[in-house]
């Protein structure tokens, strides 16, 4: 293997992203790739589903205890492992990747179940400046979009993006809308948005490339508390329709 290629997992058919060609995560094999010398990124294959995410939670719990790992950070059907200290050699790195693959293969779903938190949402209007873009992309009406968005109970898959922000699973694919070509400089905390096949609620003001369709009020993060985030993987969010501004 070339010294300069990103180190990869043990060879498999339809192997990892670090091999040549095409979009990553085709086929059925997980992918392990580098984030510099700071972290490893493990990406599970297949559909974004709760059962797969529960295996990610299980993998996170196990790898958090490894001496090389500073923090195991679940994402959407993926897991980032930040290094306490990077493995000293390429060989040590490959060994770690192999151990990670094996741990995934053996990982059983961790059926975390927390609370259901209900958030009142005003859809559309000034708090939902991109509702029209979702209408244009999906071909659905505002009421249909509100119905599809507010019906499910969304499991919290992971936290990320900014303090207290929850990545949610379970969004109806009919309202999926790609991330914006030009991100918005600042959307406020409480903004309810759709990015690709995912939905989420901003926990504080900041830039976003997602499509904001409504707004809610809730405190998601308090650094003085332990844990500082109000929600965690396994909790669930339900959006209650407080109003729709057309």
């Amino acid at each position, binding site marked *: 293997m070339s010294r300069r290629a990103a180190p990869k997992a043990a060879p498999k058919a339809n192997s990892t992203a670090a091999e040549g060609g095409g979009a990553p995560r085709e086929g059925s094999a997980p992918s392990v790739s580098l984030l510099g010398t*700071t972290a490893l990124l493990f990406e599970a294959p297949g559909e974004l589903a709760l059962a797969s995410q529960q295996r990610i939670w299980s993998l996170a719990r196990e790898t958090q205890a490894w001496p090389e790992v500073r923090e195991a950070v*679940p994402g959407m059907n993926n897991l980032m492992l930040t290094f306490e200290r990077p493995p000293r050699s390429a060989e040590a790195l490959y060994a770690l990747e192999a151990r990670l693959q094996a741990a995934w293969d053996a990982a059983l779903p961790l059926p975390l179940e927390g609370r259901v938190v209900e958030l009142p949402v005003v859809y559309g209007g000034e708090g939902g400046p991109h509702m029209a873009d979702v209408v244009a992309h999906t071909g659905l009406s505002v009421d249909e979009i509100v119905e599809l968005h507010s019906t499910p109970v969304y499991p919290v898959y992971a936290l*990320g993006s900014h303090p207290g922000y929850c990545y949610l699973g379970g969004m109806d694919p009919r309202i999926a809308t790609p991330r914006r070509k030009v991100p918005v400089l600042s959307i406020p905390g409480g903004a309810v948005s759709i990015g690709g096949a995912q939905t989420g609620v901003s926990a504080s003001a900041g830039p976003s*490339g997602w499509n904001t369709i409504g707004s809610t009020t809730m405190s998601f993060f308090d650094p003085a508390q332990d844990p500082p985030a109000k929600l965690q993987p396994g909790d669930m969010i339900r959006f209650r329709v407080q109003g729709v501004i057309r």
Partner: protein
Amino acid sequence: MIEVLSSAALATVQDQGRKGSLRWGVGTAGAMDNLALAAGNLLLGNDANAAAVEVPVFPFKLRFDADCAFALTGADCAARLDEAPLLPWWVHQAHAGQTLTLGLPQGGAQRGSRAMLCLAGGVDVPEVLGSRSTQLRGAFGGHEGRALRRGDVLRAVGEGQSCRTGFGLVPPGLSLPLQVDGVPAVRVLPAAEYPGFEEASRAAFWAGEWKITAQSDRYGYRLDGEALRPIAPMEMRSHGIVPGVIQVPHSGQPIIQMRDAQPSGGYPKFGTVIEADLWRLGQAPIGSRIRFIECSWDEAVAAQDEVEAWLDRVRRMVDLHRSSPRPGGR
């Protein structure tokens, strides 16, 4: 006590960063030039992780209301204590009533963009989630979770205490040079989506000079150069990222995620600037150009070793000097 006299200077209190809170969506923050922070702290006999003031916009002025030793590292900004010019990368003694003025970063090949003002004992602000760095999004940590404003008063843990001063360091920009064809360079490890970019784009990335545009800050550096084209559109799931990750949005103009970047993202990743070279990026001025060098895992680890060896040498020499007898009469 130190009082800030400048407004709108975007200065923030930073240490080496907040580690271990990524799982709650809290990025690391921390000094953009981690080497300047560590070295300034070592000059003062501080812990390398003590909090300091990062100054990205100049001029910047503050007044010491108590005797306090301080070190200035990072960009050489023609600093003055009252009227007296100060040597850069040096530890000095301030007396109550004196004004410190940081001027514009000095030109030349070594021109930097951020100064680190380290104080004896470190800046005295509370630790939040294990760090004194400022978390701007969410507004906590550092000084009240925000940039410093005129009238803000900071305390140094070691103000009023005696400290060995009046010496300095050869800056790492001179000791650890890295350039390609005379242009400052940083090393990059390819990331997961690297093979998903066209061959010509990949070649252009390594061969080209990239300009750091004015839309660059602690969140990210937006680069201007040849557009990087994917072989096929890549829509990604949200996943963890770290400072140094080079994202490529639809425009094809890459963005290097920096210290205040979100800890997760969904854009395709071309590569990651290695941790050992992030301090070089942290000093690259707006409008300057950089080159990228493809490196291997072993080379990246060796680069980190080199940085740590430099810090070890500094620590040894400074500790020796700080404990040596003072010359008579001085």
